[in-house]
């Protein structure tokens, strides 16, 4: 093949490469399912060192106990009469 022909061939291949369709996702997302980043649970954290809130890291039950105890501060009858 002549040199100009080779150059022309390469140029055509280069230009047509722009028309190629590249697969954007590995798998189609399932509609209706959360597509974002995963989140961590609040009980997976250590309690803040200098605050009164206390629970065992990773133990959901103790975290819920902490939340429910704190909620009772919203119950003014219990706050006043106890």
């Amino acid at each position, binding site marked *: 093949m002549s040199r100009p022909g080779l150059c022309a061939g390469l140029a055509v291949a280069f230009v047509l490469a722009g028309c190629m369709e590249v697969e954007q996702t590995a798998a189609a997302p399932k509609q209706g399912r959360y597509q974002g*980043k995963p989140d961590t649970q609040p009980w997976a954290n250590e309690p803040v060192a200098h605050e009164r809130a206390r629970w065992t890291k990773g133990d959901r039950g103790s975290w819920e106990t902490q939340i429910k105890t704190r909620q009772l501060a919203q119950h003014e009858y219990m706050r006043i009469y106890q």
Partner: protein
Amino acid sequence: MARMKFLCDAERCIECNGCVTACKNENEVPWGVNRRRVVTINDGVVGAEKSISVACMHCSDAPCMAVCPVDCFYKTEDGVVLHDKDLCIGCGYCFYACPFGAPQFPQAGAFGLRGKMDKCTFCAGGPEADRTEAEFRKYGRNRLAEGKLPACAEMCSTKALLGGDGDVVADIYRERVARRGTRGAEAWGWGTAYGQPPKGKS
């Protein structure tokens, strides 16, 4: 298993806007965005005026989750409805679907260009590492990860706004209604938000 819920007692709300201020301050919410607001009906009519504090109620069967075209909403194990701002396209469908008008859209550029949706997170942050600067900047403070309740409910001076585990909230409200002798119909929005069972359960 705790299911986080809000309850606003219309009999007690005095329209002080303490909840709005607490939310703004705690989460450093920008101008033009109100995650929580106080609505007054029959304003000035003696005996008929009622105020209610409105924000995302973290519905059992949240309509915003159903209509989102990019599926950026999720519900945490403790029942808080959150969303991923990296995924949100600011289309506004959730705003049309929400019965409480909770989703807010900050202006993101010239000519009123809408930014990514912002709403009440029940002070539970979002899908970033808990209690980090990144989480705070995008979603606000994560008080649940600090063992605390939403700032608005804890700040409420008359305890009209209750927030936390639904069972405890209901117990507090039930005793309150029994003592004052009303019908209990002042729990505004409770039926709309939690009247439907969670999706996938009957």
